[in-house]
């Protein structure tokens, strides 16, 4: 398939890896954070990190939207799912994300009507087919999935569907990046920017990273050669003393993003004053709730949502993993008490979560040998 096969070419990969080795300065350590969980998934699925020299370390950022959901929001969703007459819809393994008192899967086992959907449009279809039931969509994700929720809500409004609402947990990417950059225990040299978020928001929102913090950013695609080339581009900036936002993923990401998507986000959502992130705490203006024009579709106004606050389990170090302070396998419970089958932390649930990616592709064994 065009734009897939040529970006998985092993020979080209080896050429790029050789250029990376030739570019880095011996004796200098390079720490580069890939922001997006999709990048983390690609890195471990294809062994991209195996091709990098020992002094280039990839740090996994907070870009998996499931991994950053605080347990209290899961508990809030479960409370709504238990309301008689509610059909609670969510994306796949969101059902397995642990809250303080179980998962949505547990709620389903206890009798709640919890259903998996691929897109919010599926949830809207369920609402159409069940006019006597209340259908709630558990919305998660960054600027990539928020347009899908927004367009679905516009359809619901246009069609006059009254038994559909959205429990918004959508978040935006820039505030947590700024919070990370302000974190005193973080040492990073550069960033691999999120490719698909950038198809919506464009490249400009990331310009504060070189401007305010002096770190290079390269927006990257999701194939293995995309990642290798992006690492190379970040390293070139560092070696040459440059510091700017570059777009490796220009075949998909326009500089200005998608204005139609930004317009629909502006119409349907507004920023919350604060939103809690797992492991990162409360971050100002980082979450999206429904705008006044869509308040009739807001689950948090339609139902009594308890607003649960739950501290992360003491053994879980998702916060440190999300900040790149420790690598997944350095967590005390990684692969023992916390596995994809029985996750303690959210990073082990999602296939984009750094811990699950390590676990699924066996990289932890090699890392242990090295250290």
């Amino acid at each position, binding site marked *: 398939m065009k734009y897939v096969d040529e970006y998985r070419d092993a020979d080209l990969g080896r050429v790029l890896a050789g250029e990376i080795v030739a570019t880095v300065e011996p004796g200098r350590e390079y720490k580069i954070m890939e922001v997006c969980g999709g990048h983390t998934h690609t890195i471990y699925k294809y062994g991209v990190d195996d091709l990098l020299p020992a002094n280039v370390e990839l740090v996994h950022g907070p870009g998996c939207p499931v991994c950053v959901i605080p347990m209290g929001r899961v508990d809030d969703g479960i409370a709504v799912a238990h309301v008689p007459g509610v059909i609670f819809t969510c994306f796949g393994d969101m059902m397995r994300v642990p809250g303080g008192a179980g998962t949505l899967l547990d709620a389903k086992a206890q009798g709640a009507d919890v259903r998996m959907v691929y897109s919010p449009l599926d949830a809207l279809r369920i609402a159409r087919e069940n006019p006597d039931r209340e259908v709630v969509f558990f919305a998660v994700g960054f600027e990539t999935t928020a347009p899908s929720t927004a*367009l679905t809500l516009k359809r619901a409004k246009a069609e006059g569907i009254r038994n559909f609402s959205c429990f918004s947990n959508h978040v935006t990417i820039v505030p947590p990046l700024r919070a990370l950059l302000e974190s005193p225990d973080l040492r990073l040299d550069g960033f691999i920017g999120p490719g698909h978020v950038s198809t919506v928001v464009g490249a400009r929102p990331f310009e504060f990273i070189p401007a305010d913090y002096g770190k290079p950013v390269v927006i990257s695609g999701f194939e293995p050669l995309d990642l290798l080339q992006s690492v190379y581009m970040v390293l070139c900036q560092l070696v040459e003393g440059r510091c700017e936002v570059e777009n490796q993923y220009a075949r998909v990401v326009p500089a200005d993003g998608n204005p139609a998507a930004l317009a629909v986000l502006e119409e349907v959502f507004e920023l919350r004053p604060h939103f809690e992130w797992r492991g990162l705490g409360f971050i100002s203006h980082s979450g999206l709730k429904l705008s006044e024009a869509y308040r009739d579709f807001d689950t948090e106004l339609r139902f009594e949502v308890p607003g649960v606050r739950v501290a992360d389990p003491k053994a879980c170090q998702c916060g440190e993993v999300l900040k790149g302070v420790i690598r997944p396998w350095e967590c005390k419970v990684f692969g023992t008490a916390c596995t994809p089958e029985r996750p303690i932390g959210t990073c082990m649930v999602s296939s984009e979560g750094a811990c699950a990616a390590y676990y699924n592709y066996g990289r932890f064994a090699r890392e242990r040998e090295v250290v």
Partner: protein
Amino acid sequence: MSCAADTHCITCSDEGLPMRVVAARDDGLALCADEAGAELDVMVDLVGPVTPGDGLLVHAGVALARIA
């Protein structure tokens, strides 16, 4: 392993899926197929009019960008 989706994260669907338009409709939706031939109704409001054969980057059922 339920969370080892090959082309997108089944937890949050938050990864782009390259798809081709099979049939455009007049309600803002288009029937699209992925590389393996699996078909899906996709919202195409954000990429303008589409015709069969167009390549789209799809996130959670919405096309965010055109691809070749």
